[in-house]
């Protein structure tokens, strides 16, 4: 730690240099814009901007990409909140309460909560990463296939929180998501359910699933259900505009959200450390835990501040968490981390435990640069939130065509493969029709994310332990997480039973 303090002055000077701040600002703006485009998650955003780093120095390149990574997670929240279209898979749960807040005329408030939560998650997890990088990385190393399988099961157990009132429909949706995840390569040399179609051999891309099942039905809903909708603000132009007082965050609001931020930061940081988990898992776990702890858990989905803050904090906290195995062990835990590692290696920097001893100035620069990126994102985001929130006031019948075009273009931009556009159309129509009978799409998407984690890790664990399932299941961390999963399911069932008995009937899904 003394070595870090010795280099503190140099690191601060380096990060605050005008050229460095400019790179970070450019990264933040690029990240917000790219993250807001459906089909451009953080990994795609980094991949697209990666060539720009060839002309940058090592620190500039890394901080530019980290700024992009952090900002893309927030950028994906903007369409999720304003038009119920997640920009990245991590915003699959943001739409639940974020969009409800927009419908209530609280779009600016929602964007601000998302932004502030993301910045807090990003900064706090950066501090955690700095002080415990190597130790946390060793914890992440203990997660083998058995433990990852258990984590996937835990993820499935909390999907029940997104079922609405009808458990049967929720489980059917979960099953559909798991089946969709089995299409394509099995991971062990086999190909399933491809029916000799080349575009199915690799399975459905997550982007196609997220856009097709979450954003696509919303486009169909805007076009079909709101074809003739005249908004209240069109009939009463004098009432147009949001109520500024309701959109302002007060000190009481900050105090109210503080426990949420603490919990979700820890969740996001821990999930980020685990290779392969990612922002979507962090957001789901963060949302679910917040729902469990909140006194208003049964109101989640109606536009609550904490229901939005939790996933937004968690998915931004993942950024620093992802750096832990990447820098401390040289193991990239996600596509985005792999690109960051690629930049380091191309610049001659070798990630690993020694790095924390030999490259103290560099580590300190990354730490301070991440904090600077989050602060710059706060300024840029706050400056733009009221302007961007105007999108939420566009009449739904008018915005529908724009949303549809954006989805189709974003899907095509992902891999320039027209088959994906056709798939998104098919999934969107399918999910729209299922939503008519209250079969929810969110469990489908979440199950699609968890399915491969469960199957491939279980298969690997069984191969390693010679089909001995008991040995796999009784490893300490695996057993603990499976036990937590069981408790979560029982708790969910008991809690829902109480809710159903005490609440009036409402439509589910």
């Amino acid at each position, binding site marked *: 730690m003394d070595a870090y303090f010795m280099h503190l002055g140099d690191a601060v000077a380096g990060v605050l240099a005008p050229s460095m701040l400019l790179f970070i600002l450019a990264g933040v703006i690029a990240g917000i814009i790219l993250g807001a485009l459906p089909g451009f998650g953080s990994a795609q955003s980094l991949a697209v901007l990666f060539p720009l780093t060839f002309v940058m120095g090592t620190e500039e390149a890394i901080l530019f990409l980290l700024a992009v990574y952090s900002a893309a997670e927030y950028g994906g929240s903007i369409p999720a909140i304003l038009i119920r279209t997640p920009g990245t898979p991590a915003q699959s749960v943001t739409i639940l309460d974020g969009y409800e807040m927009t419908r209530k005329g609280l779009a600016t408030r929602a964007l601000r909560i998302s932004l502030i939560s993301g910045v807090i998650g990003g900064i706090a997890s950066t501090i955690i990463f700095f002080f415990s990088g190597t130790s946390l990385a060793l914890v992440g190393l203990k997660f083998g296939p058995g433990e990852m399988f258990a984590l996937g099961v835990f993820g499935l157990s909390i999907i029940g929180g997104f079922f609405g009132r009808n458990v049967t429909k929720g489980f059917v949706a*979960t*099953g559909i998501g*798991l089946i969709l995840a089995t299409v394509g390569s099995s991971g062990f040399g086999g190909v399933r359910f491809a029916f000799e179609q080349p575009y199915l051999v690799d399975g459905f891309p997550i982007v196609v699933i997220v856009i097709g099942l979450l954003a696509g039905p919303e486009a169909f809903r805007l076009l*079909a259900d709101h074809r003739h909708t005249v908004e209240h603000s069109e009939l009463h132009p004098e009432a147009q505009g949001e109520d500024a007082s309701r959109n302002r965050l007060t000190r009481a609001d900050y105090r109210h959200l503080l426990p949420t931020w603490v919990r979700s930061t820890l969740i996001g940081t821990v999930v980020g450390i685990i290779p392969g988990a990612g922002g979507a898992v962090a957001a789901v776990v963060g949302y679910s835990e917040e729902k469990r702890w909140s006194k208003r858990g049964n109101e989640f989905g109606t536009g609550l501040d904490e229901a939005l803050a939790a996933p937004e904090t968690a998915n931004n906290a993942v950024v620093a968490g992802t750096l832990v195995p990447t820098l401390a062990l040289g193991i990239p835990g996600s596509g985005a981390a792999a690109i960051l590692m690629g930049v380091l290696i191309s610049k001659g920097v070798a990630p690993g435990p020694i790095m924390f001893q030999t490259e103290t100035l560099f580590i300190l620069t990354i730490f301070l640069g991440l904090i600077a990126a989050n602060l710059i994102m706060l300024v840029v985001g706050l400056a733009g939130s009221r302007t961007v929130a105007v999108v939420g006031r566009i009449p739904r019948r008018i915005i529908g*065509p724009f949303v549809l075009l954006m989805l*189709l273009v974003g899907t095509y931009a992902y891999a320039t493969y027209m088959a994906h556009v056709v798939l998104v159309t098919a999934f969107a129509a399918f999910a729209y029709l299922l939503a008519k009978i209250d079969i929810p799409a969110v469990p489908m998407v979440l199950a699609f994310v968890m399915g491969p984690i469960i199957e491939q890790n279980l298969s690997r664990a069984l191969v390693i332990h010679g089909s001995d399932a008991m040995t796999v299941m009784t490893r300490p961390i695996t057993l603990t997480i499976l036990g937590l999963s069981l408790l979560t399911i029982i708790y969910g069932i008991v809690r829902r039973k109480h809710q159903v008995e005490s609440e009036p009937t409402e439509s589910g899904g």
Partner: protein
Amino acid sequence: MKAASGNVTLDRRWVEFCAYLVIGAVLAFLFAVTLNMPPPFLPGYPGDSFFPQLVIGFTALWVVIGLISTACQLIRPPAGEAARVKLNVVEFLIAGLACLAYALLMPVVGFEIASVGLLGGLLLPRLGWRSPRSWIKALVYSVVTMLILYGSLILFLGVDFPVSLLPQYLGQ
């Protein structure tokens, strides 16, 4: 405002029952496919068919529960407005066909024409066919949106879209 034509109202119980039947049929088909999957070749590996069969069985269980539940509801009288499903079939089909047309025509006519056509074609009825201002608005909105997407995705990010008109004007 005039009510939309093409609206269909259906009994929710029957729609749910049919939906569960269709899902069940698809599950049965997929299960039959898994029976022809190759056996495991790796010691310890349960095989390509293991997990799909597990998941299909899990889903089928809930589909059967759903079928029984909706069958029981069919015996009882319908419960008012909540027992109805409304669907604007015409607009739903237009949205779907517009997407497919965009996917099929973009490689032929180019990104520019396809995007302006899609956006303008969907905006115009929503802004009002009869007003000349609506025609101008629809055209301006669609062209401006197309230019923004062209500039950001194709020029700045270098995404490879099939283009036809603009490169000639931009000297590319």
